[in-house]
């Protein structure tokens, strides 16, 4: 949920609740005040009746105006208590009022306030009921209430709109920082820039993020330099072992067991060396140190590799079929050779005896398919450093290197499996 939405929801709910409570309180207050007013009017009316009776010693005419009825009925002395009541008022409609037709009635009841009192004239007690309609009072309350609600709604709308505008603008630096973080790449040289803002919180956030990224980059560089230096330093001892082995085999006179040991030593050193060279290569590719670009004739390059490896796949009894079209890409020739020889070597290495390899090059992509293990490879793990199948004698860096090369030259490397073929596809970018 966006912060703005959350904020709006909270303000909206609280505003509505408070406004509702205020509305109720307001309504109660107004209606109490107006009822008191009505009661005073009724009392005034009562006083007028008493004065009239005192002067004239008779009841006033039972009259009825628009909103008031006064009814006199005879009553036993002492049976009438003076009381104010909520009651109804029957309002007669005029002869021509269309409501008469509509409701088949002669009038309607309206809520009203009444005063029951008594008056005594010549020993006869009369019950006096003065009833005043509250219609106008209620209309008044309704209008006041409607205006209040209208104002509240207007206020809410203005609040929402201004919140949206102001908050969006306020949060802009935040979103800018977020965007920079999304673009952050620990391997490249670009740092997170200073965002233009006056808000302290964002300044702090920006500073922290910049600090963190600088530190991460520095640590990463240190680590990378360490890997590189370690690999470089390893070259000399490997060279020494290699050269001593080369000398040792010149002494000859080995028995079978000794020569088996020597062969295994050689192959161990070979693997160590390849691993080290792969690490060095990976560091170089990641640092884009091998970035000199030229037009590379893919047709020629791939055909050359196929010829280069033909004795190796023949030795395994593999059947290699290829279909190549003319294609040139703008990239490093050296790295393209490594990329495609890695893929071809993998197709040979992970094949079964008497298996198949299909190679297809066209202007859009390069596809290499090979038979082998009947289980698909784990698409997520194959590019991970040192991930390799259990029976692989490789360094576990081949596909990592291949993918890194592809990344450098905007090529897309994909793996898929459809029985019986493992397929690697490289999509070429649309170069002009």
């Amino acid at each position, binding site marked *: 949920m966006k912060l703005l939405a959350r904020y709006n929801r909270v303000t909206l709910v609280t505003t509505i609740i408070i406004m509702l409570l205020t509305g109720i309180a307001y309504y109660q207050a107004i209606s109490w005040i107006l009822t008191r007013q009505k009661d005073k009017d009724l009392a005034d009316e009562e006083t007028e009746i008493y004065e009239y009776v005192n002067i004239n010693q008779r009841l006033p005419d039972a009259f009825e105006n628009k909103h008031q009825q006064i009814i006199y009925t005879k009553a036993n002395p002492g049976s009438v208590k003076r009381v104010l009541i909520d009651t109804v008022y029957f309002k007669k409609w005029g002869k021509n009022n269309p409501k008469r037709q509509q409701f088949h009635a002669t009038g309607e009841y309206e809520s009203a306030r009444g005063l029951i009192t008594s008056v005594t004239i010549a020993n006869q007690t009369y019950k006096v009921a003065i009833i005043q309609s509250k219609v106008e009072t209620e209309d008044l309350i309704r209008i006041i209430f409607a205006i209040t609600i209208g104002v509240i709604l207007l206020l809410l709308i203005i609040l929402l709109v201004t919140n949206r505008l102001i908050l969006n603008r306020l949060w802009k630096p935040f979103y800018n920082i977020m965007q920079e973080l999304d673009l952050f790449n620990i391997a490249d040289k670009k740092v997170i820039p200073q965002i233009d803002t006056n808000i302290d919180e964002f300044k702090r956030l920006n500073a922290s993020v910049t600090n963190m990224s600088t530190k991460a980059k520095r640590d990463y560089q240190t680590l990378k330099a360490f890997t590189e230096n370690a690999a470089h330093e390893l070259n000399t001892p490997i060279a020494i072992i290699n050269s001593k082995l080369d000398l040792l085999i010149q002494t000859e006179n080995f028995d079978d067991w000794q*020569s088996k040991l020597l062969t295994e030593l050689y192959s161990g050193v070979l693997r160590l060396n*390849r691993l080290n060279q792969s690490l060095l290569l990976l560091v170089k590719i990641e640092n884009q140190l091998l970035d000199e670009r030229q037009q590379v004739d893919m047709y020629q390059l791939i055909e050359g590799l196929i010829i280069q490896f033909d004795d190796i796949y023949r030795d395994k009894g593999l059947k290699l079929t290829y279909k190549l079209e003319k294609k040139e890409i703008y990239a490093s020739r050296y790295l393209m050779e490594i990329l495609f020889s890695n893929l071809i070597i993998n197709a040979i290495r992970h094949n079964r005896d008497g298996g198949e390899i299909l190679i297809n090059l066209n202007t859009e992509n390069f596809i290499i398919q090979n038979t082998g293990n009947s289980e698909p490879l784990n698409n997520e793990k194959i590019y991970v450093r040192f991930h390799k199948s259990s029976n692989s004698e490789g360094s576990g860096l*081949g596909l990592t290197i291949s993918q890194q090369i592809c990344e450098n030259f905007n090529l897309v490397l994909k793996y898929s499996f459809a029985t019986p073929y493992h397929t690697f596809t490289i999509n070429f970018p649309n170069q002009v």
Partner: protein
Amino acid sequence: MKILIIEDEQSLRESIEEYFKGTGNICETAADYATALEKINIYRYDCILLDITLPDGDGISLLKNLKRNNYSDGVLIISAKDSLDDRLEGLDLGADDYLVKPFHLSELRSRIAAVVRRKTFSGTGSNLLIVNEITIDLIGKEVKIGEHDIKLTPKEYALLLYFIANKGKVVSKNAIAEHLWGDGVDITDDFNFIYAHIKNIRKKLMEANGKDYIRAAYGMGYKFIG
């Protein structure tokens, strides 16, 4: 052949010296910049092996010094750093080849042989390499046994040259594989396919009445007997 080995790593220097000694080669060594500078300004060599990272100086300036004095010694740079810039700088300054550590001694020897052959060719105009009854035309890449032409595939040709450069030495299968398929190539540990090439070369040489020069050595490698 007179060779100067400029290499600060004692163990490696001794290995190289040991491998090159005998078989008519004279080896001299220099462990640091000062000794090397002194030697290159006094003596002339067929080939100088130059480690460009020396403790007391830069191998590149030794190379510059050689070129400034117009000395025509062949120079092969050996470096622990496989940096394209270094390689290009070295070759631009007139080094004949660039070999990255670690390497097989047989590879080093084959490279030195190539450097020396190029020097000989530019000096005498001879492009023929003659070993007993085998005559190799290095420009046309043609091989003859006596008067018989023999047809070798490019890999067999490269392998034959490699063996001849390492005449009398046991060459490991690893070294052969790296020489033929490149050291970046990470194939399998069994090198059956090398055997097929060796067999073919022997067959072709013997069919043209050549001697059987190549012997297997304890399953670890092969040896060209001169």
